C-alpha cells in the first residue's frame, strides 16, 4: 500500500500563550515544536497499515526551516520518505495550502492508495484541507474518523457523534482525515531513531495562491486568575471539599 500522511508543525504551547508585539503571531522564541495528536494518530495508522500490507509511508509537510525535526521524529516511528514543501510559514491560507499539497502529490507521481490528514489543524482548525485535497485529486473523502479498517480496497470508517458512532465506507484510493483516539501512537525506538537520520527528504518550493483569508490580528482572551481558595491538605481539605460539594449542590 502506498500511503501519504500530511503533517504540520506546531509550537508546544504549554500553559500560557505569548504573542509577538504586533499581535500577528505566537511568539515562538522560547518554544519547542510538536505535531498534533490527530496527525500523530494518522502516522501511526499509516505505519500499522504498512506493517500489515507492505508498501511505503510518505510524509508531506509544508512550512519553513525546522519542519525536518517533526519529519525525522515520524521517520523514527516508521515513515519512509518525505516531501518538504518550503513556505515562509506553516500558517498558510487553507485554500492555497490544499492546492500546494495537491500540486506536490501530483508532481511526485506516486499512486497513493490512501492519503491521511488530521481532521483539523491544532492552531487554526480550518477543518477543510482534506476535503479540498480530495476534490483536487478527484478522490472520495471521509472526515473526522476515529476508527478505520481496510479490507478488499474499501476503508470502513467510524466517526463519533455524541455517544454514537456513524459508519462510512470509502473505496480506495481515498483521502481520510482522522482524529486523536484512532489509535495509541507508539514511541520511537532507538534503532528507529538511527534509521530516521538516513531517510530521504525531498524539498520542493511552495507555489502559493494569494490568501483569501487575511489575518487582522490575534488576541489571547484575558484570563484573570480566579485566585483559587486554598482548602489546605489531608483531612481538613477532605472536609472542606465535601462542604464545597454540598454548597454547589452536587452532593446531598
Amino acid at each position, binding site marked *: 500500500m502506498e500511503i501519504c500522511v500530511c503533517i504540520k508543525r506546531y509550537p508546544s504551547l504549554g*500553559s500560557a500563550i505569548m504573542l509577538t508585539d504586533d499581535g500577528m503571531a505566537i511568539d515562538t522564541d522560547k518554544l519547542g515544536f510538536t505535531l498534533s495528536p490527530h496527525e500523530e494518530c494518522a502516522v501511526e495508522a499509516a505505519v500499522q497499515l504498512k506493517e500489515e500490507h507492505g508498501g511505503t509511508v510518505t510524509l508531506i509537510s509544508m512550512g519553513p526551516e525546522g519542519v525536518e525535526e517533526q519529519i525525522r521524529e515520524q521517520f523514527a516511528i516508521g515513515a519512509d520518505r518525505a516531501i518538504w514543501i518550503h513556505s515562509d510559514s506553516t500558517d498558510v491560507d487553507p485554500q492555497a495550502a490544499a492546492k500546494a499539497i495537491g500540486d506536490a502529490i501530483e508532481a511526485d507521481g506516486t499512486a497513493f492508495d490512501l492519503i491521511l490528514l488530521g481532521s483539523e489543524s491544532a492552531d487554526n482548525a480550518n477543518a*477543510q484541507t482534506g476535503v479540498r485535497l480530495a476534490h483536487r485529486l478527484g478522490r472520495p473523502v471521509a472526515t473526522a474518523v476515529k476508527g478505520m479498517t481496510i479490507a478488499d480496497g474499501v476503508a470502513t470508517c467510524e466517526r463519533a457523534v455524541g455517544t454514537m458512532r456513524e459508519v462510512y465506507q470509502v473505496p480506495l484510493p481515498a483521502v481520510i482525515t482522522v482524529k486523536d483516539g484512532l489509535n495509541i501512537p507508539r514511541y520511537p525506538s532507538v534503532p528507529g531513531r538511527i534509521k530516521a537520520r538516513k531517510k530521504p527528504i525531498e524539498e520542493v518550493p511552495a507555489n502559493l495562491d494569494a490568501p483569501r483569508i487575511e489575518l487582522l490580528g490575534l488576541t489571547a482572551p484575558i484570563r484573570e486568575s480566579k485566585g483559587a481558595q486554598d482548602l489546605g491538605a489531608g483531612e481538613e481539605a477532605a472536609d472542606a471539599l465535601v462542604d464545597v460539594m454540598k454548597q454547589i449542590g452536587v452532593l446531598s
Partner: protein
Amino acid sequence: MILVYVDHDRGEIDPLALQVVSAARGLDDDVQAVIVGPNAEKCADELGSVGVRTVHHGTHSSISDYAPLASARAVLTVMERTDPRAVLAAGTPRGSEVLAHIAAIRDLPLVTECSEITLTGPDTAEVTRARWGGNLLERSKVTGAPLLATAQAHAFAVVDEPGTAQVEAFDVPVTDADVQVGIVDRTGAAATGVGLAEAKVVISGGRGMDGPEAFAMLEELADILGGAVGCSRVVTAAGWRPHAEQVGQTGTKVAPELYLAFGISGATQHIAGCKSAKTLIAVNTDGQAPIMSHADYAVVDNLHTLLPVLIEKARAAKGA
C-alpha cells in the same frame, strides 16, 4: 438573504443549527434553511420558531441517509437559485464537511469556528474565530461571495422568533459519486454511566495518577456524585484510560457544575476542554501548577492519600 445548512439525524434536528439560524438573523432578516433527505420535514416547525420562513427540502431516491457530498449538492442547488450573501452551518463534523465540500467545488474561502461575523462589503466580511481550541482569538478579513462560515458551538444564543416556515421541496441532482460516501450503519455505544459531555460532575485524573489503578478511586467518587470520569491526554496516550474519556482540545469539551482535576498540570490544550466548568477544583502536589490559576479551590496535596479520605467523607455526607 442568508442560507443555513441545517443538519438532522433521521429527523432529529441538530440543536446547534438553531444557534446558527440566530447568528444568521444577526446578519439579515431573511434567513432560509436547507434540509436534506427523508424525515427532514419534521425540522420545519422548529426552524419556524427561530425565524426561518423558507425551508428548502432536498430529496432524491438515492439519498436514504446522511451523505456529505449529497448535502453539499443540495446547498449548491439552492445557492444557484437564491444567490445568498452567506452560507452558514454549525461547526460539527457534518456541518464542517458539508461546507468544506461546497468551498472546494466553488473554490471559495471557508472560515470555521466563528464567534462573530460582520458583512463589510458585497464580497468582504470580518470574522472573529477561535484558534487553539479557544485559547486564542483571530480577527480576519475574508474576500469572496457568498461568505462560507461555520459557527463555534454555543457562541450564538438562540433567539425565539415565532412563526411558520414554508417548506419548498426540490430534487437534488445527485450522481452515484455523490452518495458513494454516506452513513451505512450506526453503532450505539451502549451507554455506560453518565455521558462525559453532559455530566454535571466530571472527575478527571492526569499523569499524577501514576497508572490505571488509582482510577478506581475516581470511579468510586464519580459514582457517589453521579458524575463521569475524565482524564488528560497523557493518560490516554499511556493507554491507562480510553480516549472517550479525554478532556481537552483533541478530546471532549465539558461544561459541568463541578470539575475536579487530580494530578493535572493545566496545559492550554487541557484547559480548552474544561474552561466552561462552573466550579473547578484542582488537587496537585505543586501549588504553582498552571491549573491553579484556573481553579476556584485548590488542594495542595498528594492525590493518592487524599482520595481515600475524601471518598469516605463524601459517602458519609451522602448517607446523612
